[in-house]
């Protein structure tokens, strides 16, 4: 208990250090999530629109879940060496599967009658995707992004084993910062993940079309 309370003392004493590491942590996560979105959302939308690739997206999603990050980093050490590329790849393998599979599912599951109706009225395939399928897919798509963001924030702690910085430097640095430091930084990571999820929940409320929220009532 003393150690736990001590972690709050640590937060007060080492605030500049914690903020610096938090900054690195967030920066790392932002890059990874941005790349994941850029890759997984268009691919998921496209596959979902074609109703093809269920096997692919499910497999990628399962592989992503089955591989421990630490193992990926270890494998990466042999391929990329000890650097940020290694960490980035490991985190992308964490982030892409949930976004890809949820985006795919979200579009794939849009009511086929609505799509037929849209096509029948003369919307082009791109218009069907952007004006009908994407807005209707947003709630499910967002759930995928939120899962990915929480995973990435917690997994980014491991970046330290490849010299990637971030709050992991403290969480996995008991020798330097003591158990108080470890607990303080771990709590910090948890709060960061929850805060990011909350922020995304707010963004979801803003972006998801009003008519869909009304329908859910």
């Amino acid at each position, binding site marked *: 208990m003393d150690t736990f309370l001590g972690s709050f003392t640590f937060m007060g004493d080492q605030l500049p250090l914690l903020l610096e590491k938090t900054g690195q942590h967030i920066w790392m996560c932002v890059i990874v999530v941005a790349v994941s979105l850029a890759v997984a959302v268009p691919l998921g939308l496209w596959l979902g629109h074609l109703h093809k690739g269920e096997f692919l997206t499910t497999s990628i999603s399962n592989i992503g879940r089955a591989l421990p990050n630490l193992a990926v980093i270890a494998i990466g050490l042999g391929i990329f060496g000890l650097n940020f590329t290694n960490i980035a790849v490991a985190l992308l393998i964490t982030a892409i599967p949930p976004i890809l599979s949820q985006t795919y599912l979200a579009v794939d599951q849009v009511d086929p009658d*609505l799509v037929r109706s849209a*096509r029948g*009225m003369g919307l082009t395939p791109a218009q069907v995707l952007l004006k*009908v399928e994407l807005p209707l897919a947003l709630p499910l798509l967002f759930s995928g992004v939120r899962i990915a963001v929480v995973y990435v924030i917690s997994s980014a702690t491991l970046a330290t084993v490849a010299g990637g910085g971030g709050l992991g430097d403290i969480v996995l640095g008991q020798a330097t910062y003591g158990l108080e430091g470890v607990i303080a930084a771990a709590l910090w990571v948890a709060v960061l993940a929850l805060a990011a999820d909350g922020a995304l929940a707010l963004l979801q409320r803003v972006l998801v079309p009003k008519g869909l929220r009304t329908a859910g009532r």
Partner: protein
Amino acid sequence: MTQAGPETPAGAQDIVFDHVVKTYPNATVPAVDDLSLTVPAGEICVLLGPSGSGKTTALMMVNRLAEITGGDIRIGGRSILDLDPIRLRRSIGYVIQQTGLFPHLTIAENVATVPKVLGWDKKRLRERVGELLELVGLPAGEYGRRYPAQLSGGQRQRVGIARALAADPPVMLMDEPFGALDPITREHVQDEFLALHARIRKTVIFVSHDIDEAVKMGDRIAIFREGGKLAQYDTPRTLLKEPADAFVARFVGADRGLKRLTLTRLADLADAGALTPARDADAALPQLAADASLRSALSLMVAEGTDAVRVTEPRGPADGSDGTGPVLGVASLDAVRKAGAA
């Protein structure tokens, strides 16, 4: 529906199916087999048949949601194969069961879908949406900003029709549009659509599996049998009087005689001089407004145990069919029977 300004008719066009065949990939038998029929401009043609008889496929070939694999379809003399599918579809109104309204868009935005992709400017768009919503009795001021989930089934169906009419297409395709409505609402929306059609005179192809709906809505009915074959194409009156074969006779039902009675109104009897003048002794007879069908008259006679009804002038829809206008005459059982057999 409320009275709006008269719709500018966009010269309805006929639709010709010319030996049309549709065989889906990997299917051994065609979904539609050598279909030839002509829907005259401005008429409603109902495609009727059991499930799997190819009626929906026949409909979807017109706007190329299903590509024909043999023969040709011409709208106003032009082959649909000569047109880009996207442009073709924008010139055809399309209504499906459950309406296919987009739940994430407002009523006004739904109606504006096609004009918007056609690039209409904002002012014209707003005017057209207002005009159409007025036409189907859902004023834009009150309903335009609502979402589909906030409307009743019947209202959604009316929005679906308004949306299909948005770019004033000469042709409308309706795929079991009223199939999901409860019977009372369906009856109401059918009446509204017929009244609307009388004013806008589009060429309509209407898929149904309900013979009563087909008889009510169709200027002509095409009955399909399994295997996508056309069994008979005729007016409801002929179809009910002279079914082409046992399949059609079974499909239209053993009560086809009664169904034919729905096609004639007591007013038609009055016009034909088939009513006898009312005498004082007839005062005890049950009475019915002239806009009721012969079937209703027969039903009333059976229910009241009489062999005639007094026919009164209809007093507007608000009074219902037992309105008490001036008596036009008496319709006897015999007169009803003879008119039904004609």
